[in-house]
């Protein structure tokens, strides 16, 4: 990585370990989070391939896979316990250790100080601790694959009593304990992170950078950090109580009269539904933790590649905040079938459907921003547009599932799997890819290959739809999520050909990611050197060198004179005006009327 003269001067006392391992520099910590998350994505993706192997061809003998995972296969066939473990860990890894960590930890750390014109985070030491708590939490999580009984097998939601009673199933043993410990450590790491993001955005903005001049990426990350701060402690509390139930014999979540292996347990009076309430009080804000930063980044990518201001900036900010607030009021829609009072279900339906309003505002604004824009179809832009498509597809099925009468039919079927893989998983992933193609030059000082990027996009876009869209039909047909083999059920056997198709599409989707990995690694070392502002974008990070040196800005901090979206301003010399350009050189004459209602 190229280090400028200034930076070399500032960094001469730092050793390699201080600079790249136990670094307190937000950029290095961001890149550490990013690379760790990408590594976890490889693991989570491999687990997805195992799921599709089993669902596509249940009962088949897999020679190679059984050699790689000797404990999970018997006579070449995948064992049911192992299948449940794989499903659980795929969900856990992808949600908590890939998407949460790459968006907030990776992009959040890297972009927040750069986009607000700060030299670093408010608490750099805490930031370093945050990353170095992520590492042990991952070690504990992955270690659980190698303990007796294997990793946790009770689903990523870890519902008790299955998760509370060590002897309930092979996946309820030590693996589940390690799962809870790993999550508890991760929560502390994420809380340290969000503490930092909120304080930094509040207190360390450059002169002139009022809140309503912030790029939408920052708004997304800001509201996300607040959501994390207010929702993760609830899961932490629940995890402690569940650990007590498992290890100390308390009965927070275990009801009276549970019989395991013919023996009545001594637990009395606990309530397993309480876990569901606590879990989803985190769980629903969590899905917005995954989508809000992606929404913000997509907005900035669309503006920069469409050469137009984002449409309805204030409404974009307002809808991010509205989604953030509503996300705390909808957790019950995960529990319609739990025996909830119909009136409560109706209330949760109303709050859930209300989220469609800010979501639609955002979608409309993205489309309006694209309308008649001079679009540069860069890889980043393709993924940003793909994000909008996936978000709409997944969001529409959300309206189905928000309604108790429909949800009671679809609960725990592949229709739900299709829904959240579109709206949360794939859309969020597209935000990550778009962000990587867009900010890679700033992160590493080199350009990624655009041709490979476009091939990657098309294969991924088609692959996602081919994989997840047919899952709606599997759900209509009654196929349950987490089912080991549909061959066990007479009424599901006809769905096998569709499952084969889905599996083939998933393998194609998985292979397409190898193109990205190659492009990423090759460009890291061999890509053409990036200039300061390759996309001719307005926001502050593009005013710093690529990659920015330690301290980001040299001697003088940037000063902000305008909002983040001055693209194609009539009368301006260029079709973009960076935020640092004073107001005077851009006379606002010409066709644009002053003080209009827009």
């Amino acid at each position, binding site marked *: 990585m190229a280090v400028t003269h200034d930076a070399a001067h500032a960094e001469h006392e730092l050793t390699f370990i201080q600079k790249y391992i136990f670094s307190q520099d937000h950029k290095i910590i961001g890149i550490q989070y990013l690379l760790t998350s990408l590594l976890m994505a490889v693991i989570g993706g491999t687990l997805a391939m195992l799921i599709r192997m089993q669902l596509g061809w249940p009962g088949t003998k897999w020679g190679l896979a059984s050699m790689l995972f000797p404990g999970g296969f018997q006579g070449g066939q995948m064992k049911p316990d192992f299948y449940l473990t794989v499903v659980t860990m795929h969900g856990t890894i992808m949600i908590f250790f890939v998407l949460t960590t790459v968006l907030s930890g990776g992009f959040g750390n890297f972009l927040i100080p750069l986009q607000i014109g700060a030299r670093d985070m408010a608490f750099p030491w805490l930031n370093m601790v945050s990353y170095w708590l992520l590492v042990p939490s991952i070690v504990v999580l992955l270690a659980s694959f190698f303990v007796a009984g294997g990793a946790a097998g009770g689903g990523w939601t870890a519902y008790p009593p299955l998760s509370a009673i060590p002897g309930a199933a092979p996946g309820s043993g030590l693996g589940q304990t390690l799962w809870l410990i790993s999550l508890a450590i991760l929560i502390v790491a994420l809380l340290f992170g969000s503490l930092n993001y909120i304080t930094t955005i509040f*207190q360390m903005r450059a002169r002139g950078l009022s809140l309503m001049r912030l790029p939408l990426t920052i708004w997304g990350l800001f509201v996300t950090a607040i959501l994390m701060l207010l929702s993760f402690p609830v899961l932490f*509390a629940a995890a402690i109580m569940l650990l007590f139930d498992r290890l100390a014999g308390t009965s927070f979540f275990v009801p009276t009269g549970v019989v395991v292996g013919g023996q009545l347990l001594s637990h009395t009076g606990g309530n397993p539904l309480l876990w569901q309430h606590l879990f989803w009080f985190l769980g629903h804000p969590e899905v917005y933790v995954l989508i809000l930063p992606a929404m913000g980044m997509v907005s900035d990518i669309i503006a920069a590649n469409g050469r137009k201001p984002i449409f309805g900036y204030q409404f974009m900010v307002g809808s991010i905040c509205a989604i953030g607030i509503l996300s705390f009021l909808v957790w019950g829609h995960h529990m319609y079938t739990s025996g909830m009072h119909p009136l409560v279900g109706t209330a949760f339906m109303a709050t859930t459907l209300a989220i469609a309003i800010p979501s639609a505002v955002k979608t409309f604004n993205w489309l309006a921003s694209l309308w008649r824009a001079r679009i540069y179809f860069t890889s980043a832009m393709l993924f940003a547009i793909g994000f909008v498509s996936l978000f709409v597809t997944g969001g529409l099925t959300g309206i189905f599932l928000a309604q108790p009468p429909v949800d009671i039919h679809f609960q725990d079927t592949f229709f739900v799997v299709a829904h959240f893989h579109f709206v949360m998983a794939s859309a969020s992933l597209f935000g990550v890819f778009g962000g990587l193609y867009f900010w890679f030059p700033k992160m590493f000082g080199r350009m990624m290959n655009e041709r490979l990027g476009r091939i990657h996009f098309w294969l991924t876009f088609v692959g996602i739809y081919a994989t997840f869209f047919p899952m709606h039909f599997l759900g209509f047909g009654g196929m349950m999520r987490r089912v080991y083999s549909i061959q066990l059920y007479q009424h599901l056997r006809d769905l096998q050909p569709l499952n084969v198709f889905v599996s083939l599409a998933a393998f194609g989707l998985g292979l397409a990611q190898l193109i990205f990995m190659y492009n990423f690694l090759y460009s890291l070392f061999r890509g053409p050197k990036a200039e300061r502002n390759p996309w001719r974008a307005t926001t502050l990070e593009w005013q710093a060198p690529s990659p920015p040196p330690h301290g980001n800005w040299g001697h003088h901090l940037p000063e902000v004179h305008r909002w983040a979206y001055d693209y194609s301003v*009539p009368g301006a010399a260029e079709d973009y005006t960076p935020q640092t350009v004073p107001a005077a050189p851009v006379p606002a004459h010409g066709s644009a009327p002053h003080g209009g209602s827009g």
Partner: protein
Amino acid sequence: MLPGTRMLERPGAGGPAGPGRTGGPFFGRPGDSGAVPLPEISPGRIGVWLIVGAVVVLFAAFTSTYVSRRVEPDWQTGPLPAILWVNTIVLLASSAALEWARRGSARGADVVARTALGLTTLLGAAFLAGQVTAWRQLVGAGVYLASNPHAGFFYLLTGTHAVHLAGGVGALAYAWWKVRILAANADAMVGALAIYWHFVDVLWLYVFAILFWF
């Protein structure tokens, strides 16, 4: 832009700076290059308030579980170790001592500040020792974590509170060391610390109250 191109919005409408140019700290000020975004609050203070927010949510989650558990027919409130009253007084005294330190530090009376800081640290440690004694008394009386639901919540809530308080004692000791050994001005730190310490103090009163009287 080509003449005649129609757009849904007008770039540069209302001046070149876009929205966010007028109207107080939130929206910035006219031509606001010199505007300070918000009144200067030390990052430490904001950080402490955010920690307080997270801990409130944590205990709210415990409370909701507690409230729904205690209405079950098998609920019975357990014995109250008498030492908890002593601990409560010790903790309240520590808050008073820290307030003394904060005011001393604010008016530059370093001797007062460091004496009072040392006293607060000792009282905090004494509270922790008292809590450990209470747990030992209960264990001696045969009340364990899994003995009954109330005992489970007692250990859970007092234990979680003690962990948060221990963090505060660590920070107090660090502040005291800074003032005593480094002779550094710990004004900002003591100010931020006071927020946290008074919070865990009130949190104890809350935990104590809901465990035995609600």
